[in-house]
């Protein structure tokens, strides 16, 4: 299985390449990708440098162009597709039907992957994107159990990549607008969820409140660790109960499922986190490389080493990990 790692800038790309990624995915420095954060992503000259560095070490480079342009922004997406083709990237990861159509007609040899933001959760949807645009790979949304992943792969016309580690979207990617409901900005339209521009940290007599678009997401007593106010990980009051009504602040870690993923026919596993630091990318890539190598050496006796799990737990949101939807009880 191919290890696909995130890179939000050139140092992170080098960290991923140097620590054993088979492919890295990057984005342009604007709202054409789903990690549109201040100071993040690649100017074209840095992209050239990054691609040269990765290629020199036999690592593939994918460009994510996976938000949804409105009519007045479509021209910028066309230019971004053209730029990606000119750079000779190994794949363009896109979600929007109009963008995929433009890319497939204008650059027929450009390798297209369907982004997780394309929300394809079943093989009939995958067949649509394959037949219409010739996609060769799709990233599955984080909604299927591992047995459902296997079933999709059995019927899929394209290779399948799945998320294995990192922040956990609880909702079907591409179909969640919670963020814009509170802030006006969503992953689909703006390339960011729960954007920092709309976060407020307010000290109160009892501790610290975090608000997103003015909505109270978390209320921390004094001394408690304060997490980022991602909307779906907030604490709310429902029917008299105060709890994480949607999801706890946890991250995905599916390492123990590597044997099942291999058996299911998964072609690539994806690490989330283009917004994370080069140090994080280095550490996580190194551990996953070791795990994959260990698994490939002796598939039947593979179990995650406790030190890997501990190290990954430490860098995870909320310092907790879950198997997420791959494991039916989570659902």
């Amino acid at each position: 299985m191919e290890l696909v790692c995130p890179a939000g800038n050139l140092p992170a790309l080098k960290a991923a390449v140097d620590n054993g990624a088979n492919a890295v995915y990057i984005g342009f420095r604007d709202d054409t990708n789903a990690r549109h954060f201040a100071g993040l992503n690649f100017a074209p000259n840095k992209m050239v440098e990054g691609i040269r560095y990765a290629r020199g070490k036999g690592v593939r480079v994918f460009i994510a162009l996976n938000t949804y342009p409105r009519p007045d922004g479509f021209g910028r997406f066309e230019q971004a597709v053209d730029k990606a083709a000119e750079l000779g990237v190994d794949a363009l990861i896109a979600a929007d039907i109009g963008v995929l159509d433009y890319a497939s007609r204008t650059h027929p040899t450009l390798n297209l992957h369907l982004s997780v933001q394309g929300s394809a959760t079943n093989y009939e949807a995958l067949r649509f994107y394959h037949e219409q645009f010739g996609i060769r790979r799709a990233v599955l949304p984080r909604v299927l159990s591992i047995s459902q992943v296997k079933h999709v792969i059995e019927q899929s016309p394209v290779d399948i990549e799945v998320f294995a580690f990192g922040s956990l979207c609880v909702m079907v990617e591409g179909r969640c607008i919670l963020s814009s409901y509170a802030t006006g900005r969503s992953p689909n339209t703006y390339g960011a969820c729960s954007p920092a521009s709309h976060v407020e940290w307010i000290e109160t007599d009892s501790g610290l409140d975090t608000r997103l678009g003015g909505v109270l997401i978390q209320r921390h007593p004094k001394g408690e660790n304060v997490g980022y106010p991602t909307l779906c990980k907030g604490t709310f009051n429902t029917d008299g109960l105060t709890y994480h009504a949607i999801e706890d602040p946890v991250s995905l870690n599916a390492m123990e499922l590597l044997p099942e993923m291999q058996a299911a026919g998964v072609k690539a596993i994806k690490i989330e986190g283009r917004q994370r630091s080069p140090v994080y990318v280095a550490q996580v890539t190194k551990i996953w490389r070791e795990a994959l190598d260990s698994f490939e050496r002796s598939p039947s006796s593979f179990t995650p080493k406790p030190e890997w799990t501990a190290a990954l737990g430490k860098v995870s949101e909320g310092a907790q990990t879950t198997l997420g939807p791959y494991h039916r009880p989570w659902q």
Partner: protein
Amino acid sequence: MSCPLGTQKQVTMNNPQPPTASAQSGHRPRLSLGPITYYWPKEQVDAFYAMVAEAPVDIVYLGETICSKRNQVRHEDWLAIAERLAEHGKEVVLSTLTLLEAESELKRLRAICGQDQFMVEANDMGAVRLLAGRPFAIGPSVNCYNDRTLSVLAKQGLKRWALPVELTRETLEQMQRAKPAGVETEVMAYGRLPLAYSARCFTARHKHLPKDDCRDVCMDYPDGLVVNTQDDQQFLVLNGIQTQSAHTVNLLAELPAMRELGVDILRISPQSQRMDQVIALFHRALSDALEPAEASAQLNALMPVGPCDGYWHGEAGMAATAA
């Protein structure tokens, strides 16, 4: 032909289409009733559509779009309801499940897409594939954010699209200028907004029940389960695997703008109470019997929580600018 969009901001398009005849001012959009998004007992569903049969709605979307475990009304029952509504002069459209995961769900999808008595509203690209070559509609959860996407889908047989609910009036205007000929535009004008879908059932989780043994817990919440912030703002609604807004979108006051933009259909989304009054207010506004602003103000009193309209105005969806 007059061009009601002519005074608006110019937008660069590759294949601009002239505004259709329906964009003339004075044009009257039709009224549609979206699918029931909640889990109601069959008797309640039957009573609801008995009311709808006599009510002034033009188009009715039918079917389970949220959760395949909701089996009070089965495929044959939906078809029977559809036939009764058609006998009452309604245009009936069958809506498909939004999140398709299991093979059993695809089997049901094929049954819906395989019949040719009623048009189908695809709520997932898997459904679009099965419907290609025949006339079909897409619901607001199919991501159609630009006219290029509309053009691709029009080649497959798309006859009607629904504006994704997070898009603005300005984007709609751009879409209307550039959309392919023969494709109708529908806008969700009333109802709790569909905000997200998940593998997880939040209602079952709230009751500490596993999703696979949920005991039909959604039936306890005929308008979903309200999520409040810790400072007591009603914020979201849990509806099984779906998350909705607690506030109800209300765009009836925007009817003059929608007429100007040539919107073909206004969609209203069912709630468990007072839906006959909601339909009546829309009908009166659409037939010029009541000022849209006045009808809109009266609607606000019929909502479970209160109104919002921010997305239309390019703000946070929860914002209430007209209220």
